[in-house]
């Protein structure tokens, strides 16, 4: 099982310490001569990516996604835990691992601006021991695949941001690595550009059986692009599931009840098994939305109790719907419960 995984993080942990001199303390806003700040950027994280799969790391800014990507590419050394790429430990076989991964980090400065896409590919190809005919053919093929052939001989500084990003992906693919790591590949791009990149990533993963890691803070990107999604929150993995499963986790817990008026919500929230109740008023009419516990037996009796309570109150019940969830709700829910439990503990 684990030997089939192309990339594995086993209990990886990273704590950053930063030292500040004569700066305002972030919390107290007082100027200090010296203070030390500690960030637990990655907190004992374990996941794997299998060949032919796109795994998404979804999380807010500062959640620790980039740090995970950098740990896989050997740019950041974990405090503890192991990172394994294609059976090789990144710590001990870093240079070998580098031949197996293509990485696109954030920012557009990873490509050389005064050079053309073709020259960029040949420069980075040369640095990575790809040369001669193979280099030329592969560059042409990649530019064609990503749709930059017409810009082949235009200096990069004249290209748009989306085109630069696509070129960066080409550069990462110049060695034809089995593993591709993309850090925020569509952030800051317009709809068409990000659409194009998503399509190409999916196409490539399916056709060439690559193993792809994508980080994003955008739910839609994750939902459209990824086979599996790992939700990262404050350095921890809050969930790691197939995209459909993740959407389902909560979708069967929220119900929309369409009513003729909004009843008193207090008796409803008092029912055991009801987590929350809120008034609804959208284009489908008015009503309430109730969120129930995950346990099936409890949920069932709670739902009966809600209906009974509404009947007692004399409210007309028009429809009961399963709430259609999008990833955003799921994400917010997971990260919120996480902070709550984090604070209470």
């Amino acid at each position: 099982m684990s030997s089939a995984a192309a990339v594995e993080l086993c209990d990886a942990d990273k704590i950053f310490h930063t030292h500040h001199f004569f700066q305002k303390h972030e919390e107290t806003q007082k100027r200090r001569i010296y203070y030390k700040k500690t960030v637990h950027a990655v907190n004992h994280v374990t996941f794997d990516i299998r060949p032919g799969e796109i795994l998404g790391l979804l999380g807010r800014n500062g959640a620790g996604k980039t740090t995970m990507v950098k740990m896989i590419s050997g740019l950041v050394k974990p405090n503890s835990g192991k990172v394994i790429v294609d059976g090789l430990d990144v710590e001990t076989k870093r240079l070998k691992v580098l031949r197996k991964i293509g990485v696109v980090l954030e920012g557009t400065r990873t490509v050389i601006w005064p050079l053309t896409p073709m020259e960029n590919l040949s420069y980075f190809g040369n640095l990575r021991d790809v040369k001669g005919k193979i280099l030329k053919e592969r560059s042409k093929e990649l530019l064609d695949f990503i749709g930059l052939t017409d810009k082949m001989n235009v200096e990069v500084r004249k290209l748009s941001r989306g085109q630069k990003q696509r070129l960066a992906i080409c550069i990462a693919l110049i060695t034809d690595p089995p593993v591709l790591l993309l850090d925020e590949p569509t952030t800051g791009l317009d709809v068409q550009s990000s659409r194009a990149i998503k399509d190409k990533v999916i196409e490539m993963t399916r056709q060439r059986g690559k193993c792809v890691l994508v980080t994003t803070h955008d739910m839609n990107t994750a939902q459209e692009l990824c086979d599996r999604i790992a939700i990262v929150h404050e350095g921890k993995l809050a969930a790691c599931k197939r995209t459909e499963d993740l959407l389902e986790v909560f979708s069967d817990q929220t119900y929309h009840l369409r009513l003729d008026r909004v009843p008193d919500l207090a008796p409803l929230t008092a029912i055991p098994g009801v987590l929350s109740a809120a008034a609804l008023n959208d284009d489908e009419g008015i009503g309430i939305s109730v969120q129930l516990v995950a346990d099936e037996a409890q949920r069932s009796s709670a739902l009966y109790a809600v209906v009974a309570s509404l009947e007692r109150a004399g409210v007309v019940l028009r429809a009961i719907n399963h709430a259609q969830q999008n990833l955003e709700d799921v994400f917010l829910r997971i990260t919120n419960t996480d902070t709550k439990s984090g604070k209470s503990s």
Partner: protein
Amino acid sequence: MGFFLVLKAEVKRTMIISRRYWFATLTALFVACIMFTVFFYGFFSGIGTGMAGLAIDKALGLIIGIFAFSMVGMFSTGLAGMARSGELEQVYMSPHGLITNFMARSTVSTILSIVTWTVILSFMSASLQRASSNESPSNPQTVQAATVDGATNTTTPPANASTLPSTAGTGKLHADPLPVSVLFLLTYFSMTGFGFMIGGLVLVFKQVGQIAVLLRFAMMAIAWTASDALYNHHIILQALAHTIPVTDAAICLKLVLLKGIGNDVFTHPSFFYLILNVAVWTPIGLAIFKAMENWARGKGTLGAF
């Protein structure tokens, strides 16, 4: 092996960029030429004709100084800038490692500065020779030819270096192929060794970049004034000067190129100190760089942070 691959990639890139922006390249060269020449012409006419030897001495000192200046610059502000832009991480992820990459980069920039300074020095010498031509008629090509030979004789042994027309006393350059090439190589290695040490420190402590600015100017001043008069100074000052790799390199190069002591340089104490500098700075520099590279990986400062 990796070194040559990286070197090839770097040379290609540099050529493409300087060709593509040929206008900028030319103007930069032209402005440097003019500034340098005006500066020295002023200096030269101020102290009277017949002192071209002194002028060339100072010019050579300045060139060595500028070389040291840009080399340390590459490893300090250059490296910090690369970390900020993300280029450093990109380089770090190439399977040849940072050291090989920076070796190649420093080689390219050294070759580039040799070529540039050859052009500038020849431009300057042409005007100097013209200015002093009524006193001692000379061949305006002398310095140019000598410099070209001196600069490139690692690859092409100069046929005419020893047969140059004598213009003694007016700044003739003695480009003895053996000592000059040995000195160039030693200078290069002591400077890169020193550069790697600074670079390693900059990787972890970004503030070192600011200190390095001071160091760069100090090196330029030292190279500009360095002469074997150093040996008359106080012992502590001497010791301090010898630890800076540019001092003895400048003294040796000046002795060979200007005084024409030829192979005698190999027995000069400054040559000994230069070797010592290479023997100390290269391993120390590389060791520090390696250690700091690892530390930077732990602190995550290979990127912008």
